[in-house]
C-alpha cells in the first residue's frame, strides 16, 4: 500500500466531509443546532438511563456484580452481532457497489489502498451511531462505580473501539468469503444461508447461555452474589469477545483490575491479529471478489420470458385505480428484487417470531407487586422500539429510494397526495401488522392474570396502532424532508444523520408514552396484587393524552413530508 496516495485520497475525503457537514448557511446552521440538541438530549438520556439501571439492579433486587456483568456480556454479544451484520450489509454497498471504487480502480491506486479507504468509510458510517450509544451507556455505567475519566477513556479507546473493529473486520472477511461462494451458488442462496446461520447463532447463544438457569444458579449463593462464579459460564463463552470485555469490566468493578487485564489484552491482540488477517486477505482477494460481484449480478439477471405472468404482474388487470396500481406494483417489485431489503425484513420477522414465541409462555406468579408492571413496561418499550426500528429501516428510506428516477413520477400527471398516501400506507401497514402481532403476544401473559378483564389487551392494541401510525408518519415525513436521491443503499439512508435524528425523536416519543402509561399500568397490577377493583375508566385520561400526542406528531410528520415533496427536484 502506498501511503502518500492513501493520505492524498483521505485528505480530499475529509475535506469533502467537512464541507458538507459544516455548511454555514442559515438553514443548515439551524438544522445543525436542532440535531445537536436532540443528539445531546438523547446522549444525556442514555447516560442517565444506564446509570439508573445499574443503580437499580445492584441496589434494589441486588442481582450482584457477577450476574449483572453476565447480562452485560449478553448485551455486548447482541451489540457485536449488530455491528457485524450492519457492516456486512453496508460493506457490500461500499466495497462492491460504490461508483467511487469503480472510479478509483481505473486510476493507479493499489487495491489494498482502495480497500482500506472503503473499509474505513464503511466502519465509520455504519458504526458511529452504535458507538455513540455504547459510549454513553458505558459512561453511565462507569459513573455509578465512580471510575475516573482516564479509566473511562481507556475503556472507550482501548477496548470498545477494538471490540467494534474486530466485529467489522470479521464482517468484511465474511463478506469476501460470501462473494467467493456466491460466484458458485448465487447471491440469493448465499444471503439466505447467511441469515439462517446468524439466526441459528443467536438462538444457540441464548439456549446455551440460558439466562433463566444462570439466575437460578446465582440465586443459590444469595446474598454473596458479587463473587466470581465463572464455573457457571458455558464452555464456549471464553471464546467470545463480548465475554472478554464483560469479564474485564466485572473484575474492574470488584477492584481487581489485574485479574481483568489478561482479558483486555486478549481482546486487543485478537483485534490486531484480525486487522492484519483482513488486510492480507484483502490484498489477495478484494479485487477478485469485486470482479465476482459483476459476474454474479449478470448471471442473476436473465431476461424474463415474454409470456410468463408473475404474481402482481403489471400486465394483469386490477380492481385498483390505475395510478395506485402502478405505484403499488412498482413498490412491490423494487422491494422484493433488492436482496438487502427482503433479507433484512425476513431476519426481522424471524427475530420477532422468536421473541413472540419466547414471551408467549411467560407465567407470572404474583409474589412481587412491581414485577408484572415492570415487565409490562419493558415489553411495551420493546414493542415501541421495534416499531421505531422497523419504521426507520423500511419507511424512512422510501422517498430517497425513488432516487434519480423520481423525475418519472414528478413529470407525470400524478397528484403528489396520491403518490404520498399510497407510499405511506404501504409502510404503515407493514409496520402496524408486525407491531400488532408483537403487542398482542406481549400482552397475552398479563391478560392471563385477569382473564375476564380485557381492558389491558385493548389498551395494548390501541397503543400498537398509535405507535405504528406515529412512527411511520414521522419516518415518512422526515424521510422526505431529509431525502437523499443520490444514495441507493437503504441501510445507508437509514443510518444517515437525518435518519438518526428521526430515530431519536421517535425514541423521545416512546419514552413520553412509557411515562404516560406507567401510573395506570402500575395501578392496574397493584389492584390485582392487593385484590382491589381497578376501574377501567382510569385508563381513559392517559389514553387520550397518548392519542393527542400521537395525532399531533402524525400530522406533523405527514405535513412536513408532503411539503418536502413539492420542492424542486
Amino acid at each position, binding site marked *: 500500500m502506498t501511503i502518500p496516495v492513501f493520505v492524498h485520497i483521505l485528505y480530499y475525503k475529509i475535506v469533502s466531509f467537512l464541507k458538507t457537514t459544516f455548511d454555514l448557511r442559515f438553514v443548515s446552521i439551524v438544522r445543525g443546532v436542532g440535531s445537536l440538541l436532540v443528539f445531546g438530549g438523547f446522549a444525556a438520556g442514555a447516560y442517565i438511563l444506564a446509570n439508573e439501571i445499574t443503580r437499580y439492579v445492584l441496589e434494589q433486587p441486588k442481582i450482584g456484580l457477577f450476574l449483572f456483568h453476565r447480562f452485560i456480556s449478553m448485551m455486548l454479544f447482541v451489540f457485536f452481532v449488530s455491528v457485524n451484520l450492519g457492516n456486512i450489509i453496508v460493506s457490500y454497498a461500499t466495497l462492491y457497489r460504490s461508483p467511487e471504487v469503480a472510479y478509483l480502480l481505473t486510476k493507479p491506486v493499489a487495491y489494498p489502498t482502495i480497500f482500506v479507504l472503503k473499509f474505513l468509510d464503511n466502519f465509520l458510517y455504519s458504526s458511529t451511531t452504535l458507538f455513540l450509544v455504547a459510549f454513553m451507556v458505558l459512561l453511565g455505567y462507569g459513573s455509578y462505580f465512580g471510575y475516573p475519566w482516564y479509566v473511562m477513556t481507556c475503556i472507550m479507546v482501548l477496548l470498545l473501539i477494538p471490540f467494534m473493529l474486530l466485529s467489522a473486520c470479521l464482517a468484511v472477511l465474511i463478506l469476501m468469503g460470501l462473494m467467493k461462494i456466491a460466484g458458485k451458488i448465487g447471491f440469493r442462496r448465499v444471503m439466505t444461508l447467511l441469515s439462517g446461520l446468524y439466526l441459528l447463532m443467536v438462538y444457540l447463544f441464548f439456549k446455551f447461555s440460558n439466562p433463566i438457569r444462570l439466575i437460578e444458579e446465582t440465586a443459590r449463593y444469595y446474598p454473596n452474589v458479587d463473587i466470581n462464579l465463572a464455573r457457571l459460564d458455558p464452555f464456549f463463552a471464553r471464546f467470545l469477545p463480548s465475554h472478554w470485555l464483560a469479564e474485564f469490566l466485572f473484575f474492574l468493578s470488584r477492584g481487581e483490575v489485574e485479574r481483568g487485564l489478561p482479558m483486555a489484552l486478549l481482546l486487543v491482540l485478537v483485534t490486531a491479529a484480525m486487522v492484519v488477517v483482513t488486510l492480507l486477505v484483502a490484498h489477495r482477494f478484494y479485487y477478485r471478489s469485486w470482479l465476482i460481484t459483476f459476474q454474479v449480478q449478470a448471471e442473476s439477471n436473465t431476461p424474463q420470458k415474454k409470456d410468463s405472468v408473475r404474481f402482481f404482474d403489471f400486465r394483469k388487470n386490477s380492481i385498483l385505480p390505475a395510478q395506485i396500481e*402502478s405505484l403499488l*406494483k412498482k413498490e412491490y417489485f423494487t422491494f422484493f428484487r*433488492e436482496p438487502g431489503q427482503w433479507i433484512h425484513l425476513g431476519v426481522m420477522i424471524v427475530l420477532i417470531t422468536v421473541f413472540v414465541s419466547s414471551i408467549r409462555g411467560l407465567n407470572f406468579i404474583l409474589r412481587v407487586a412491581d414485577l408484572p408492571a415492570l415487565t409490562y413496561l419493558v415489553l411495551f418499550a420493546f414493542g415501541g422500539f421495534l416499531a421505531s426500528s422497523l419504521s426507520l429501516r423500511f419507511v424512512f428510506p422510501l422517498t430517497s429510494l425513488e432516487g434519480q*428516477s423520481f423525475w*418519472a413520477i414528478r413529470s407525470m400527471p400524478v397528484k403528489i397526495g396520491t403518490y404520498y398516501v399510497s407510499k405511506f400506507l404501504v409502510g404503515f401497514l407493514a409496520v402496524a401488522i408486525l407491531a400488532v402481532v408483537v403487542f398482542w403476544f406481549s400482552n397475552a401473559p398479563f391478560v392471563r392474570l385477569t382473564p375476564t378483564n380485557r381492558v389491558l389487551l385493548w389498551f395494548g392494541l390501541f397503543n400498537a396502532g398509535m405507535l405504528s401510525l406515529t412512527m411511520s408518519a414521522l419516518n415518512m415525513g422526515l424521510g422526505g424532508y431529509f431525502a437523499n436521491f443520490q444514495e441507493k443503499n437503504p441501510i445507508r439512508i437509514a443510518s444517515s444523520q437525518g435518519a438518526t435524528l428521526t430515530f431519536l425523536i421517535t425514541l423521545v416519543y416512546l419514552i413520553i408514552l412509557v411515562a404516560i402509561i406507567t401510573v395506570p399500568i402500575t395501578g392496574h397490577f397493584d389492584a390485582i396484587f392487593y385484590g382491589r377493583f381497578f376501574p377501567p375508566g382510569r385508563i381513559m385520561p392517559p389514553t387520550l393524552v397518548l392519542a393527542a400526542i400521537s395525532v399531533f406528531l402524525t400530522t406533523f410528520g405527514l405535513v412536513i413530508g408532503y411539503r418536502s415533496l413539492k420542492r424542486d427536484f
Partner: protein
Amino acid sequence: MIQLQSVTKKFGSFVAIDNLSLTVQAGEFFGFLGPNGAGKTTTIKMIAGLFTPTSGRILINGFDSVKNPLEAKQSLAYIPDQPFLYDKLTGREFLYFVGGLFRLSKEFLKEQIEKLIDHFEIGDWVDRRTEDYSQGMRQRITIVAALLHQPKVIVVDEPMVGLDPRSARIVLDTLKKQSREGVAVFMSTHSLPVAEELCDRIGIIKDGSLIFADTQDRLRSYKKQYDGKLESVFLELTK
C-alpha cells in the same frame, strides 16, 4: 402548445432564468441552444414540472403548470438528458408503470408497447431489468415511455446522449414525424447540425436570458452576415 410568460427562476440570489418569454406552437419543432450553464435544463425542468418558476407562468396546451399541473402534464412528454430508470424493473414493467400513471388501458398499452419497442429496436432487452441497460438502451426506453400516451407536447433535453448513430437517426426521425403530426416539440441540444436539420425555429439562451429566437429562414439571412455557418452565429452570440 407551450407558452412561457415572463418566467424567472432564482436559486437563492442566483438568477438562473431571467424573464423568459416564448411560445412553441402545435406542430412546431423548437430548438433550444445555449452554452453550458445557460439555463436550458432549468427551463426544461420548469416546463416538465420538476422546478417551480419563481415568477411568471408556463402554459401547456393552455393549462398553467403550477395551478393545473395534472392537466398540463396529461398531454406532456418529458425526456430527460440523464435517463434514470427504476433499476429493479424490467423495461416492459417500467413502460406499464408509466402507462398506469397516465391511466392508459392495458389493451392500449400492450399494443403501444409492442409497436414502439419494435420501432426503436429494443428487442429482448425490454424483458431485462434496466440495471443492466447501457445509456443508449435507457434512453430508448425513456423515449418509448414518453410516446406511450400520444402526447401533444414533447420536451426533450439532449436526446442524442449515449445513442449510437442508427438509434439517433430513429429518434430524430420520430421526433420530426411527431412535430409534422401536430405535436409541439421543444428540444434542447448542443448539436448545431441537428438543430439546423430538424428545427423550424431556434432559440439561443445565455446567462438565463433568451438572446435569439427566430425561424430557420431568418437565421439563414443572419448566417450570411458571418460565414454561412450556424456555429459562427452561435459562437458570436454567446461570446
